[in-house]
């Protein structure tokens, strides 16, 4: 009888110990979650008003982090009377470390735009140098543009961004913004080119982060980009309609997903 009782008591002790460990883990997890949620609130408060009206332009976006904090980021602001600067950035990786870089990027871009003006290519060069100098071991892809309501133009720089930004014209025709460029924060000698195209206030610019491609059907990058093109055509690039075409939001998505549109008011 004695050895059996001893075995039983040892078993009970083990169970109690496991229960305690389980409770400790739950507490630690809750703490971490709260920490992430607090970070998420700060990051959200750094995003622009959604939607925003800026100098006659309507800026609309949707950011969906894969966990709590996002390595994707968007911003738009009016540095002077006729112009609106905007960008969509996708920092390598996701989660907290990438989110820190989005905050730094926002700070750098706003500061450099004040200092050096609205040239997207010049801004890309500056940010590239700064990120390399800091040595964060993080890089990013970027669509950085400047719309001019008076001149009816869009000037932009593409820094290794996928999928290519799309423009839906007043007739609903969809075309890609052409051009290419290096990612930011990787190559010290990276050159950035600036492109300008006509952009009327009836047109809508539609930009997404590459996380969206992972949600679409189709085998391979090329096929998924075509699917994205088709979706934008079908929805005329309207964010709510686009979102309704994506898989349900329940469950974890593999990457952060961001959509952004810009059109005349």
């Amino acid at each position, binding site marked *: 009888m004695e050895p059996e009782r001893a075995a039983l008591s040892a078993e009970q002790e083990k169970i109690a110990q496991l229960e305690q460990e389980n409770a400790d883990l739950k507490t630690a997890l809750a703490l971490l979650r709260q920490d992430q949620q607090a970070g998420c609130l700060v990051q959200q408060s750094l995003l622009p008003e959604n939607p925003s009206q800026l100098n006659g332009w309507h800026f609309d976006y949707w950011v969906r982090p894969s966990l709590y904090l996002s390595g994707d980021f968007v911003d738009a602001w009016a540095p002077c009377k006729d112009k609106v600067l905007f960008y969509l950035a996708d920092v*390598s*990786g996701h989660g907290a470390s990438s989110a820190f870089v989005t905050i730094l990027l926002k700070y750098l871009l706003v500061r450099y735009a004040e200092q050096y003006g609205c040239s997207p290519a010049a801004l890309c060069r500056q940010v590239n140098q700064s990120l390399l100098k800091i040595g964060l071991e993080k890089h990013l892809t970027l669509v950085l543009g400047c719309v001019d309501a008076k001149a009816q133009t869009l000037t932009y720089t593409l820094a290794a*961004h996928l999928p290519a930004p799309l423009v839906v014209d007043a007739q609903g025709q969809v075309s890609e913004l052409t051009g290419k460029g290096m990612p930011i924060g990787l190559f010290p000698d990276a050159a950035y080119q600036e492109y300008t195209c006509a952009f009327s206030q009836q047109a809508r610019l539609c930009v997404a982060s590459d996380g969206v491609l992972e949600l679409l059907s189709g085998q391979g*990058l090329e096929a998924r980009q075509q699917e994205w093109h088709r979706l934008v055509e079908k929805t005329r690039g309207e964010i709510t309609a686009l979102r309704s075409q994506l898989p349900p939001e329940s469950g974890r998505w593999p990457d952060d997903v961001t959509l952004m549109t810009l059109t005349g008011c």
Partner: protein
Amino acid sequence: MQTGKLLSAKTDHAYLLKLMGDVRLTLCCTLDKLLENIFVDQSTTSIVIDLSEADNLDSTTLGLLAKIAIKASVMGLAQPSIISPNPDITLLLESMGFRDYFVITPQPLTRQEELKEVPQLAGSEAHVRAQVLDAHRTLMAMNESNRQAFKSVVQALEDCPHPC
């Protein structure tokens, strides 16, 4: 999709890095170690990155590849080669501007024209081919799974006609 794997091998002068499956390096602590390994040996003169069995590369992995190219250039080595037969992966590499920093080929270098197009590449075609072949053979000799993994590459290299 196969979980990502990173394999490496070194012969006399060539360093071979083979990425397989869905490569997602969410934690980068091992990357610096890897970079160190590649460049610690002064005798390394060429670097070959084999993506023939990679399904996908995440952004951190792309960052690692870029660092290899930059380090190689700083050390005065030839541009690293990337073997990428998968058009999707090649598209991804091109979107990142990697054409300026790597010799990207759909298969191991076998054609004379490719070498003409890329004057930065040190060594003759036969030399590069021999290096790639050597590195792959070394990998194969390491263990049975490597032997299986690299069989097709080595076969292709051995089958390709020797340059005149």
